[in-house]
């Protein structure tokens, strides 16, 4: 093992609230993302439980139809934009620089800027509850129901502008990841030695760059329709509601993969680690990432089979949708190959990863059923779709995020999550999930449409809805145990060594939690699992010829760490203020816009004037 000690500018971490507001450290920003998104996940979960309570029995009266419509809109928007995406970004922020042996992200202040935009975007969206009503047109916001003629309240305006903020946040985050992963890898870590989680984040970032412009445009057109009387989506003036659907789903379908690719990465890391094996078919896995993301841009109209697009379009989009199943199948079987003949340690993280394989498969299979056009004509917009999408996003993304939490929590805090509580969390989640989401497929076949606030007893859906509600509360109980587990563990003393799970990748090659500068020394990288090679040379075919790495620069190299900076939050606040100025523009004479611009300008000047390190 080549060990090169370098001179370090500072080794102790700053403390206090101010240090968090001005932080540009990728690990702290990662933790900020995880905590904020974790809280939004909790809120989105509470919304889900209210929805399930309303639907537990026919003719439910817990909430009014209008409140119900706000709840399912906010549940979807929250879980997608404020929970799963930023949770992925949080893990990416924390883990990716460590995994590639970097000291920080390529643009640390931009990283902080992205976080503050996410926070302000989330707060803006939720302030709608107190300022005239939440958005109520579904997370998909189909025009023309989002037009003022059919939706005069302010909720849709909040939705448009907060999604724009979140979009900017995602774009800067994605650019940062791409530059970081392409430029800041440790010596020897070629692109075909990237750990698969890094692959997942890289592909996700590329997807974001190409997919987000489409929804940005769609939202701007809608904003113009609502504020300035254009009629892009209004058929009364030759506008076209289908334009919204095409623009939205051109973003919306890749968005599914944006949420699930990091999960694929997390699962790959965890299965390999707890099996003490390399990932089976690494190259195929990496190509599957690329293949799925490319195909994901060519399947968007499978959300629109019932809209009356031409049969030829139906057939082409169905064909492309079937094609996605091939690389997804490769992934499933390669994961099975990874644990085959392994030395499996059944930690909570591994259990969640194994549960992911079993349950996510159902999401893939029901996806094939939905891509079958005639079947889709029957089951689209029923609970079958709700079941399917939760099997992809809950059984997929959320299970992986739970697994990732148990896996990386010791790295982040130096403390272990309680395994017994973890097992309780796992079993409650699995049983609850099957009760709620598998039953949804069935009740969809029984003809229950989505997005209905109530139903009549004559439909024969009572029993199944009650089962779903019980399942949802089991999932909720599991999540409660999970949060309690985190709180309890944080009060324990630090017991984790740098490498508690016998890890394979570089994040385990430093202390837990890592120092501000991440690594004092770097081990050589000659495969996707450099730490494994370093520890068990005898079990690695790469051990024979480790490429020697010299980072010391003759013992004189300085570690450059970026300065804390106050300006990212100022710039993010200015931008958010400007959008709030647009939101209340008609009432306030657009005064907020110039004020926001001035704050942004001050933030930019401060940012540029401050030395980066």
């Amino acid at each position, binding site marked *: 093992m080549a060990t090169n000690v370098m001179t370090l500018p500072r080794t102790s971490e700053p403390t206090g609230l101010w240090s968090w507001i001005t932080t540009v450290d990728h690990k702290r920003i990662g933790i900020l993302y995880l905590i904020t998104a974790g809280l939004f996940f909790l809120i989105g979960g509470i919304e889900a439980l209210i929805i399930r309570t309303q639907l537990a029995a026919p003719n439910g009266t817990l909430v009014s139809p209008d409140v119900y419509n706000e709840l399912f809109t906010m549940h979807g928007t929250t879980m997608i934009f404020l929970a799963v995406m930023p949770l992925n970004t949080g893990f990416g922020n924390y883990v990716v620089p460590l995994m590639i042996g970097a000291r920080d992200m390529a643009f640390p202040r931009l990283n902080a800027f992205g976080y503050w935009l996410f926070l302000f975007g989330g707060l803006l969206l939720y302030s709608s509850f107190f300022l005239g009503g939440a958005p109520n047109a579904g997370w998909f916001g189909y025009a023309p129901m989002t037009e003022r003629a059919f939706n005069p309240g302010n909720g849709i305006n909040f939705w448009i502008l907060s999604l724009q903020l979140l979009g900017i946040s995602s774009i800067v985050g994605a650019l940062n990841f791409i530059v970081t992963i392409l430029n800041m890898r440790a010596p020897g870590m070629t692109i075909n030695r990237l750990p698969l989680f890094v692959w997942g984040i890289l592909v996700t970032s590329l997807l974001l760059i190409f997919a987000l412009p489409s929804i940005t445009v769609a939202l701007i057109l809608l904003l113009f329709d609502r504020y300035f009387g254009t009629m892009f989506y209004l058929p009364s003036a030759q506008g076209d509601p289908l334009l919204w659907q095409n623009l939205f789903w051109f973003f919306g379908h890749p968005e599914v993969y944006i949420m699930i690719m990091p999960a694929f990465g997390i699962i790959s890391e965890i299965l390999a680690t707890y099996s003490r094996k390399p990932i089976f078919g690494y190259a195929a896995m990496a190509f599957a990432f690329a293949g799925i993301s490319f195909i994901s841009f060519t399947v968007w109209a499978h959300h629109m089979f*019932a809209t*009356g697009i031409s049969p030829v379009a139906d057939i082409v989009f169905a064909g492309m949708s079937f094609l996605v199943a091939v690389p997804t199948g490769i992934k499933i079987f390669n994961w099975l190959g990874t644990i085959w003949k392994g030395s499996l340690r059944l930690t909570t993280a591994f259990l969640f990863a194994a549960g992911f394989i079993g349950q996510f498969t159902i999401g893939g299979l029901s996806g094939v059923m939905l891509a079958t056009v*005639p079947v889709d004509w029957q089951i689209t917009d029923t609970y079958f779709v709700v079941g399917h999408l939760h099997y992809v996003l809950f059984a997929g993304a959320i299970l992986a995020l739970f697994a990732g939490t148990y896996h990386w929590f010791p790295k982040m805090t130096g403390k272990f999550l309680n395994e017994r509580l973890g097992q309780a969390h796992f079993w409650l989640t699995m049983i609850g999930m099957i009760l709620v989401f598998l039953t949804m497929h069935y009740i969809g076949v029984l003809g229950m449409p989505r997005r209905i606030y109530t139903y009549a007893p004559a439909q024969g859906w009572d029993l199944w809805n009650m089962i779903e509600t019980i399942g949802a509360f089991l999932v909720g109980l599991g999540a409660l145990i999970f949060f309690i587990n985190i709180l309890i563990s944080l009060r324990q003393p630090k017991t984790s060594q740098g490498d508690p799970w016998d890890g394979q990748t570089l994040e385990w090659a430093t202390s837990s939690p890592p120092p501000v500068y991440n690594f004092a020394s770097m081990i050589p990288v000659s495969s996707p699992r450099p730490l494994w090679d370093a520890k068990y040379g005898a079990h690695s075919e790469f051990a024979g010829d480790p490429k020697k790495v010299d980072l010391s620069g003759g013992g004189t190299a300085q570690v450059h760490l970026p300065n804390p900076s106050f300006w990212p939050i100022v710039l993010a606040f200015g931008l958010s203020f400007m959008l709030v100025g647009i939101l209340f523009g008609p009432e306030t004479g657009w005064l907020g816009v110039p004020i926001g611009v001035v704050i942004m300008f001050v933030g930019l000047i401060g940012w540029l004037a401050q030395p980066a390190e």
Partner: protein
Amino acid sequence: MRLFWSQKSRLLAILIISLTFFALTGCAGTPQDILRAYSPAAAEIANLFNILFWVSVAVFVLVEGLLVFFVLRYQRRAQDEHPEQYHGNTRLEVTWTLVPALILAVVFALTIQTMGQVGPTNPPAQGIPITVAGQRWWWSIEYPEAKVRTAGILHMPTGQVMNVALHSENVIHSFWVPSLMGKTDVMPGHDNSTWIYGNIPGTYSGQCTEYCGTQHANMLFRVKVQSPEEFQAWLQSQTAPAVEPAPGSLEATGKEIFLNPNNKCIGCHSIESTDAPLQDGPNLAHFASRECFAGCIYENNRDNLTRWLENPEAMKPGNLMAKALMTLRPETPYHPLTADQVAALTAYLESLK
């Protein structure tokens, strides 16, 4: 008439359906079950669904079986245990790329084949044209050749294709009768078309399946498949002009209240079948001959009608009628009519046979 299916294939399809898991676990009392197919088109789709379902079950059992077996079989026994480091196996990987691809190719072929048989733009024949309009939140149903406009219940004869034009002047809805036909969206701006065909008399449930606002959940309708004679008799009865109430009767008072513009009824409703532009409220011609009202969520009887007219907001929160009538008696916004008015209007509506 010669259609693409035969009685035999339909029976076969229904037989296959009855053998499925779904038929075993529930069926009776679920009127919108997509596998409870009562038309050849719905049976074709149910058939395809079942093929996919069983293929999926097979794949799931394979994956889940391997997963559970591996997890039980390969647990770590010693702390220093080091398994052999397999990095992959080209032959296996090619297999699990090609086999799923082949299965999907077959599914793709079945998809195209079935689309040709049940596609909304491929009606098996030209039959009776009708226009179905999605309103907030109820369905307007129009027979343009007979100049009949009704709401909530679609009457059709057995053995004839209904060519349906789907029309919306507000938001997007979706037209769906699970037992008879897959859904097609009702898009504002351009009329989609679909068709339905039924050969088994009966009443089938339909529901709007594209989220369309506050009362999306209560936008139901029924399809009554009748013998051609019954259907013709019904259509004839709907073309008759409205019955004139006897002077001085309660019904006559009701009609007066209805026609008084101050009460706002005629702003949204008409009592003569017409092909004039759609109104926000259902056409009430021959209202008393309908089984259900208010988006087909209430049976049409005196009790329900009275309660509806007394307090429409309580009966269907957020409906446009309750909104429109809120200013009628500002002191009681959700009770817009007096008890006398309600009684007279109920009597009048009940006379519109």
